[in-house]
């Protein structure tokens, strides 16, 4: 009677250890292999955040999404995270897409004014709120990868 109990307890402890180890070493979302939850234009994405930051944050934050739009500018001013800016609303609204350092060449190969498609992890809306010097409003994506247009 004792033996099965010891065996069951040992298995339980092993399972708990494995679960703890797996949780502790959980990997970051791999955007390249993750399925995109939504696919939309940069205008549609910006419009949702513009309409309700709270609702859009709940819907998209930490989700892998695919966004296509007009590349306004490459922003390579921070070598730790090269970024590109897509048109958001034709005014002061943008989609800011950050790439990993190893994607610098991909970002550099782009040309301002071309149409691009990007897959990335949505992080939310940085609009500066009431801070008057920070009037630009960005929907922010991280860990982005470029998707080749058909």
């Amino acid at each position, binding site marked *: 009677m004792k033996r099965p109990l010891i065996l069951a307890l040992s298995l339980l402890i092993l399972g708990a250890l494995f679960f703890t180890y797996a949780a502790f070493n959980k990997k970051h979302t791999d955007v390249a292999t993750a399925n995109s939850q939504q696919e939309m234009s940069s205008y549609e994405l910006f419009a949702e955040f513009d309409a309700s930051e709270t609702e859009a944050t709940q819907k998209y934050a930490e989700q892998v999404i695919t966004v296509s739009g007009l590349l306004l500018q490459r922003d390579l*001013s921070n070598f730790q995270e090269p970024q590109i800016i897509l048109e958001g609303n034709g005014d002061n609204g943008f989609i800011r897409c950050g790439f990993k350092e190893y994607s610098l060449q991909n970002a550099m190969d782009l040309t301002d004014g071309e149409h691009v498609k990007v897959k990335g992890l949505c992080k939310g809306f940085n609009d500066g709120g009431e801070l008057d010097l*920070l009037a630009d409003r960005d929907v922010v994506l991280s860990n982005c990868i470029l998707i080749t247009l058909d």
Partner: protein
Amino acid sequence: MKHITTIVLATITLITLAFTQHNGGVYKTNTGNISFFSRTPIEDIAAENHKVKTAFSSVNGKLQFSVLIKDFEFEKALMQEHFNENYMESTKYPKATFNGIIEDINIVEVSKNGTYTSKVSGKLTIKNVTKEVSATATFSVKGDIVNAKAVFNVNPSDYNVKIPRAVINKISDNIKISIDADYTHQH
């Protein structure tokens, strides 16, 4: 006729000045760096954000930051998850902001290469809690870029960040925040 010419010239000068002043002194970046570091005997925790939106006015010294909490990246995904969901509640409080002033802006010569030091002070808002903070910042002007660096410390409990008893020994009550941003002039 002379009066009319003078009035027209004065008006043009005023309009030109107004436009120059509008963006004249604003330096900005959307790619600033903020990192934080927590050291305890049990564990070191660090995270970085490279998409900090920040600007300052070289005219009046106003300095502002806005940073998305979810965009802080940790080495371990689980730490990042706990930071966002349990401690910072980043879906409910998505941003941290700073609204302050470069106290000695008059000594920061943005058009002359060099290194200048000034006290920076203002209101730091995290999780809807606003506190006065201050730090010494270094401004290094090199060509078109003004680099600013500053380091200060915060206590999470001051900003309603509740640390569960089980991990209280793993998270410092004196977290070091480092800022490093390259500003360029806005035309």
